[in-house]
């Protein structure tokens, strides 16, 4: 899984751009780890980051909720 490519697909999604009110030009060229703190983008990022061969849907969901509770999203 090319995580960078997957994340890139999300960033390029117009729906996401609308919801985060981010402009495309602001996103270009930035490495995905460096992006500004936006809850939605963070959610996407964290989901991708924590996805690996052992992860399950439940596990990832719990992780996201944990991150949210900790204010990390």
């Amino acid at each position, binding site marked *: 899984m090319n995580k960078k490519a997957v994340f890139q697909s999300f960033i390029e999604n117009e729906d*996401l751009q609308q919801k985060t009110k981010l402009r495309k030009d602001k996103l270009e060229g930035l490495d995905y780890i460096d992006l500004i703190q936006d809850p939605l983008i963070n*959610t996407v990022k964290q989901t991708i980051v924590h996805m690996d061969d052992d992860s399950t849907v439940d596990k990832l*969901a719990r992780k996201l*909720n944990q991150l*949210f509770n900790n204010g990390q999203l």
Partner: protein
Amino acid sequence: MIIKSISLQDFQCYSGVHENNKFEFEKGLNVIIGDNGSGKSKLYDAFNWILYDRVFDSNSRGFFPTSTIRINLFSDKAKKGANVGDTITVEVKLHLENNLSSSSIGNEYFLYRTYTAKRKELIEDYNDLKGWELSHISTEKVETKDVLHFKLDNSPGIFDKVRKMLVPDDMMPYLWFQGEQVDSLIDFKKEESLTKAINALSDITVYDDIILVAEKVKDQANSMYEKEQSGLSKNKSEFDNWKTSKDKVEGKIKKEREVIIELTEQVEQSSEKINTLLGRIEDSERVLTLNSNLQAEKERSSTVSENLKSVTQNFNKNIFSKKWILRNTLPIWDEFESKRKNYQDKREDIVTSRKAERQIEEAQKMRLPVNIPNRKHLEDMIQENKCFVCDRELDEEHAKNHVIALLERAKNISSRGPLTKYNFSDFFERLYNIGFNNESAAKSADDSVNREIEKIQKLENEKRRLSENVDAVVQQLESLMQLSSLDLFTSKGIESAFRSTEKTKDTWQEQLTLSKSRLKNFEDELNSLNQNPPELKGEVQQQTIQRKELFNDFYLVAKSTRESVYDKQIRKIEAEANKHFHAMTSDNSSVQGRIILEKRGSAYLPKNVNSEGIEMSSINDSNIILIKLATIMAIVSMRGNSRETFPLITDAPTSKFSDNYTIGFCNTLGSIYAQSIIMSYDFFHNEALKKTLLENVKNVGAVYIIEPNTKEDNRENRDTLATYKTRIK
């Protein structure tokens, strides 16, 4: 990884040892040329069997494992020649080379698959399982090159490992296929067909997984929110009712959306059907019109035939009714005329003379004594009863009576009777009139006959002409029916099918509209419920609200991203497929425009459009195969990178092509596959095509011609069947 060689021992029509049945291959395009039934498909089967332990059956269009095929794997020759106690072995050996590896260790392999059978009983039908003791399964073996030599490799799972290096499982359908499988490999109408392809190319499943995660957290956040709401509600039961209503409406919304999807597909299908029928309706109308013309011609022809029969039947009747029989009688009529005239003249003479005689006689017999007054005076005198001579009454009875008697006698003489005994003048006059009346009929008999004969000839000509007309229309009709694959029944059906399909579509459309309207109502209802929640004692926590909003957005975004990624992949495949499609059809000037994959519901259907996106000709059978092949090649070319090279093995992929496409196809292969092995009939009889292949196609490796030692239609005795191969390049 490329295939260096394959060799077969007693594998179906390849009887004999490995050395006799060895094919060596190079990089680039390798071609096995053979007539139908020469063993090309069996060679393809050999590839399948060694790697996947199965062979393809074209009748059932499916694969069968060794455990089902069993004795049929072996060559007839081997089976025939086995005595009781003998063991026969079928074996296929594959020599592989990892051409990208620079290492001399582990870069070459021999793969073997072996299956044995022992003759336990000599039965005449050597295919009868009762005569054999068969192994349950075949055995696999790998030899790996170790510097200079090949050593048996027993590492666990080595066979599968090497196999996957050669052909990754997810790519296998697009690398090894038979021509007849192409249709189902890429079924544009089925979403799963394209999704499978996209999965082979990209990580679409990752997006699906993300959607699942997003859905889960969304549901959890929503549930958390509702729980809090419930806890805060002033009236618990009111809240519960509200919640229940919401759930109900949400359920209805979900259901209605499913219904809409189904109805949309129904409408799509009806539209497609209508389009198909439209295409045929013109033809079917022509068929029906021609048929009705035919019936009219047949009827006309029948009427003329009837007429002709009647006129012919009545022909001889005219001998009497039109008096043709009188044709030769004019001289006789003249004779009669003359005879009659003579008779008349003579009769007149006779009558006249006899009359005169009579008159004389009469006169003589009527003479009275000399000095008696003349008759008239006598009569007057008798009348007045007075004698004019002496002027006195005729009182003397005797004298008076005597005079009266004299007068009476004269009268009797004059009314004595006919002058001839019989008078046949009326009779002859009647005969004369008959002759007279029929004279013109006798004179014009010839004309009448000729007219009648002319009439008959005209009718015969007409009959012939109409019969030819009928034949012509029949031919037209038959030809049209063949070209359009329509018959009368179908044609009649098409018109009504069209009308009924239109009606059906309208019905579906109506239902769809209603459903959409219902959905809108449900959504409005839901909105209203959401906007008017029951009163709460307090406020839901901000965090809860934020979680809900965030994860709902996440879910929506996950779905739309997946969709756009999928669509992008389709576009990429489309672009890549167009590249290959144009490369393959560059020699065919009639092929223009480009192929687009148009989203229709859950499917993507190919259309041929010009640069403005307007649809051009509809896609026919041979084009669709080409498009599908181009799509397959796109999948492979997109998946492969410089580090991965997979061989293409295909049996009769070009069977539905014209010659131009075949060469185009061969030329394109080289740019996509490091190695391709194709079995083909096309070059067998076509010397020109073969020449083009050998001289003009790029990157041609090995070319073989295979021939069985006995012709297919002469194979009552298969037990000597062997396959000869000749390498011509």
